[in-house]
């Protein structure tokens, strides 16, 4: 399948994206030298730590700047490989990113990236516990990272995605509204519940309640239909993003001086993780005819959904089962 099917421009910049992947690969390899050269004016960590919400947890030092830079570059390289139909290469980048991220002790992991990469590669299980985000590596260490007040809004979609892709409904057992909700920090609860991606939870047989989730209560037909519409809407949003990035964003259409970077990501991690979660834990539902409100739709969003589903099928090949 052609990559990013809604966008004609996509094929035209494939070469540029391949160059970008090579550059990011080199950058990731050089990051330790670039960010860890003592006495050369580089020992100050860059502000890259802001992409990890647990940097606010003062109990632990932030992940090393070189680690963050390297993991970030490898993840982006993998994203570009994935959307340009190089699935095995993408998985290789993600494995390298996860290996780099978990090389140091667990209390210095860039926890959100470990959760997302580990869940995608089936190398970890992610649980939402009242105390915090519980990330357990397959045959390896685990880390329970406290909520520290609340997760940031921008991490909530990835938390949801990582949890659902790694264990489906079971990820939320600690947050069941049948348990004692008072132990869950209100900020963490409202932020995760407030994510747009949380609208699809009935597809995982999770019912959102005002104060948590309920996995024992079966969603109603109306809740399931609303969730399907929300899932479709996430693809519309993704299609709009791709259109704007590839067709109208000036750096994409008129790059300066061989610049290969695109201004915005081409890959929607949160949506991809929801797809992985459905494919793994709701396989009966994960067919086009059941996911679309009207299977005869032929829009940019439906073509994108087809594309992501084909990516998920390829991505799953060769991954371990948990």
């Amino acid at each position, binding site marked *: 399948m052609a990559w990013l099917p809604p966008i004609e421009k996509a094929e035209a910049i494939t070469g540029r994206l391949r160059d970008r992947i*090579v550059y990011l690969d080199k950058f990731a390899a050089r990051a330790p030298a670039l960010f860890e050269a003592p006495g050369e004016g580089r020992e100050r960590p860059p502000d*890259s730590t802001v992409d990890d919400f647990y940097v606010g947890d003062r109990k632990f030092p932030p992940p090393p700047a070189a680690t963050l*830079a390297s993991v970030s570059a490898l993840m982006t390289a993998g994203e570009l490989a994935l959307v340009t139909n190089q699935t095995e290469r993408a998985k290789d980048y993600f494995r390298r990113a996860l290996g780099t991220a978990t090389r140091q002790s667990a209390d210095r992991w860039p926890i959100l990236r470990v959760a997302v990469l580990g869940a995608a590669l089936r190398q970890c299980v992610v649980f939402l516990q009242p105390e915090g985000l519980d990330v357990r590596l397959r045959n390896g260490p685990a880390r329970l990272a406290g909520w520290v007040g609340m997760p940031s809004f921008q991490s909530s979609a990835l938390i949801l995605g990582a949890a659902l892709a790694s264990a489906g409904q079971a990820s939320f057992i600690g947050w069941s509204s049948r348990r004692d909700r008072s132990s869950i920090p209100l900020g963490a609860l409202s932020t995760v519940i407030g994510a747009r991606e949380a609208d699809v939870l009935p597809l995982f047989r999770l019912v959102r309640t005002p104060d948590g989730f309920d996995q024992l209560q079966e969603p109603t037909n109306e809740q399931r239909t609303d969730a399907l519409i929300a899932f479709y809407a996430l693809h519309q949003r993704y299609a*709009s993003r791709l259109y704007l990035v590839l067709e109208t964003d000036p750096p994409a259409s008129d790059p300066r001086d061989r610049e290969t970077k695109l201004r*915005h990501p081409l890959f929607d991690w949160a949506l991809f993780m929801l797809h992985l979660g459905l494919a793994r834990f709701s396989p009966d539902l994960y067919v086009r005819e059941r996911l679309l409100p009207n299977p005869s739709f032929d829009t940019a969003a439906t073509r994108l959904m087809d594309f992501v589903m084909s990516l998920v099928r390829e991505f799953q090949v060769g991954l371990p089962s948990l």
Partner: protein
Amino acid sequence: MLVQWCLKGIAEGATGPEDALAQSRLGGPGLKSSWLFDLRGNADIFEFPERSHKALSYSALDAHVHSYSTVGRTTPYISLSAGCVELDPFTPTTTTIKAWETALDFATRSGTQSGFVYRLWVLVSPKPAPELPGFAEEVRELNSFDTFAQFHHEGEITAKLFVPARQIEWVEKYDRDLSLLWRARNPDFVPPERVSNLLDYL
């Protein structure tokens, strides 16, 4: 005023190694703008202040950032990178783009050739003043430069006319694989602490 550390990536020319040229920027006038090169031989030194005042303007800065291919040979501005936090309006989340990533990207033309990276500091005005020499403009700051969103992801700080050599700490050369080939420190470098507002007691 703020003191801002920046990186500057410059690709090596197609005609051959430019190591001597790169190291010469640690002395003399430092990093020069294209405008200074263009002026060379065409103006008396005493005309420099008046001419530079005419060259610096909001529209010239706008052209430098948004139409570099048109004004690149005559612009009085110099693009530097300090990184930035870029908003993804669709999710809505932010991504941090590191100055190193951008500077090396420009220096090596995305890992396809060798180039140089300079580490330097400039004084930045907290409000736009593109016509005033002596201060760099933080064009990545959209609260001040609200029409400069197009290339925001480059995290640009824009210096004017030249960056004095004494504000350049070092220059490094990288090959196309981003491996460090050599580093030259500036013996005349003056650290920014000399002009910061942290005063010690007498």
